[in-house]
């Protein structure tokens, strides 16, 4: 399942448009799941949440959270990839 590129593409597209469709807790869950397959998508999702809804003077909390999820997702992604290859 992890090596399936179509699943990775589907989850990435779903996570990238989720901020405009779903409530933010579901968007967060979807981006965490997508980050395991493709970590940078979490940064994009967080950025889109902040661009769409944050005030101009506010701190971009979700962009920062997205960066954190991307880093964590990269570790998980690398771990799973190593386990599969070995």
């Amino acid at each position, binding site marked *: 399942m992890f090596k399936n*590129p179509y699943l990775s593409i589907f989850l*990435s597209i779903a996570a*990238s*448009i989720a*901020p*405009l*469709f*779903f*409530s*933010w*807790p579901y968007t967060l869950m979807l981006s965490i799941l997508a980050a395991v397959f*493709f970590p*940078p*998508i979490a*940064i*994009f999702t967080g*950025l*889109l*949440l902040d*661009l*769409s*809804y*944050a*005030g*101009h003077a*506010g701190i971009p909390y*979700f962009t920062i959270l997205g960066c954190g999820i991307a880093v964590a997702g990269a570790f998980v992604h690398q771990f799973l990839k190593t386990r599969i290859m070995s």
Partner: protein
Amino acid sequence: MKRPFSPKHNRSSVGYVAGVVVVLAVGFILLLLRIFLPDAFISLAAPFWKAGTAMDVGTGNWFTGLTHGSSLAAQNQMLSSEVTTLENENAVLTARTQDLTKLLGSQPAQTGGAIVAGILARPPLSPYDTLVVAAGAQDGISKGAEVFAQGGVPIGTVESTSAHSATIHLLSTPNTTTNGWIGNDRLALTLTGTGSGTFSSSLPKNTPISVGDTVYIPGPGAIPMGTVTRVDSDPSSPNDTLHIQPLVNIFSLTWVTIAS
């Protein structure tokens, strides 16, 4: 041990890097759009917001339709009767206000025009307790203008505007404070937003308040905006904490009026 070169693995790495570049490039373009062409960004996002709202409504209607038809019919009849009663009460109060105005010899204040704006996005779609509306500076909306829900209840202020859209900062945004009153005695209190349309406040112990008391905010006059749903009393604190449920359900707002 050195891993032998594999064309398949090399292709997947190139694809991964290409994917990262595309995602970051699209993100950067969206950031530039939002900063320099905010209306273009809203125009791109609006069809998705409308589709999402339609999906929400359709899903809600589908689940509602699963309920037995007769209970829905009974509920509909009860609600229609309630609406008729409220309309009649409103007419009585309006007439009474007019009589009092004539008696006291004063004219009601001219409130000026208000702008009706449709909502494109609301919580929980928005995680920041903000509303995005489809009316902006060209429609007469200015930064800092007061925003009202149905019934004239103030719910927030305009935080930023572009030509055809505006972002509204709700009063219930966490750590936002608003002055108000509680109860028939109109005791003064400070409301603190706790997100998702709810508020909290604290008053000294032994203040004559109870669950169900109405909370008011200025707007003109004292406008009811919520009721007390819980009172927490901590023996180590000199104050009681009130939890306030608003009268306006921000999750189901479809339009607002904005003072011009």
